[in-house]
């Protein structure tokens, strides 16, 4: 059972419910796979994620990050905190403050699906898969390619980002009844995603 969050505010409760529903809508096999790699816990927080991650690490008796790392993590909307096997989502991120409630719900679900896809990619991609990142990014849909480039990810992170973004997009599509390989998704990315996530739609 995923770790439940502290529901200190109404908004927090709503965001947590969104992530819970996003989790429930994953294919059964994917939930089982995420549980098998320990990526089935999450917490929605209302603070920058560098600060939140530090608190989690310190409470677990682990060393905190350098200030520079914390500052970078503060920019994230979601993270897969692999040391503690938990997904953290910052529902008070400034980018989410600019949107209406419907958009906010959709995007929080998208962040959760992205982070679960990311966790599977990190756990299961080979070194060759990682090394193929620049090529995979070139084959990715334009929207994914632009986000990854504009956010400043490094080439060794491209594969994980492509898998995570594609996974989130396929979950959105699945929710609307879409199945099978989309016409807009390159064979190589779809094959890798199926292998990494055991996606079987």
């Amino acid at each position, binding site marked *: 059972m995923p770790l439940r969050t502290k529901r200190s505010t109404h908004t927090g409760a709503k965001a947590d419910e969104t992530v819970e529903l996003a989790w429930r809508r994953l294919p059964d096999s994917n939930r089982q796979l995420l549980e098998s790699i320990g990526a089935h816990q999450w917490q929605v927080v209302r603070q920058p994620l560098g600060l939140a991650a530090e608190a989690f690490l310190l409470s677990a008796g682990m060393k905190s990050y350098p200030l520079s790392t914390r500052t970078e993590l503060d920019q994230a*909307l*979601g993270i897969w*905190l692999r040391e503690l096997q938990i997904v953290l989502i910052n529902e008070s991120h400034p980018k989410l403050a600019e949107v209406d409630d419907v958009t906010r719900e959709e995007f929080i679900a998208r962040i959760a699906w992205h982070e679960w896809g990311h966790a599977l990619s990190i756990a299961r991609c080979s070194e060759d898969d990682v090394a193929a990142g620049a090529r995979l990014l070139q084959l990715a849909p334009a*929207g994914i390619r632009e986000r990854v480039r*504009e956010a*400043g990810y490094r080439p060794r*992170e491209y594969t994980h980002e492509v898998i*995570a973004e594609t996974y989130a997009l396929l979950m959105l599509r699945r929710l609307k*009844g879409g199945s099978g390989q989309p016409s807009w998704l390159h064979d190589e990315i779809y094959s890798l995603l199926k292998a990494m996530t055991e996606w079987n739609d």
Partner: protein
Amino acid sequence: MERLNVRDGYVLGANQRVEDILAADAELLRSEGIDPTWQGFSEPQAS
């Protein structure tokens, strides 16, 4: 255990908005005849 990579986070570029990301998703879904309108977690309507 390997330390967290600083970019294990989901980050948007300084000039990217949430709406831009969702608009790009919607364009792909629309291209294959799927209505991209977010309707929460309700079951898809049978066509």
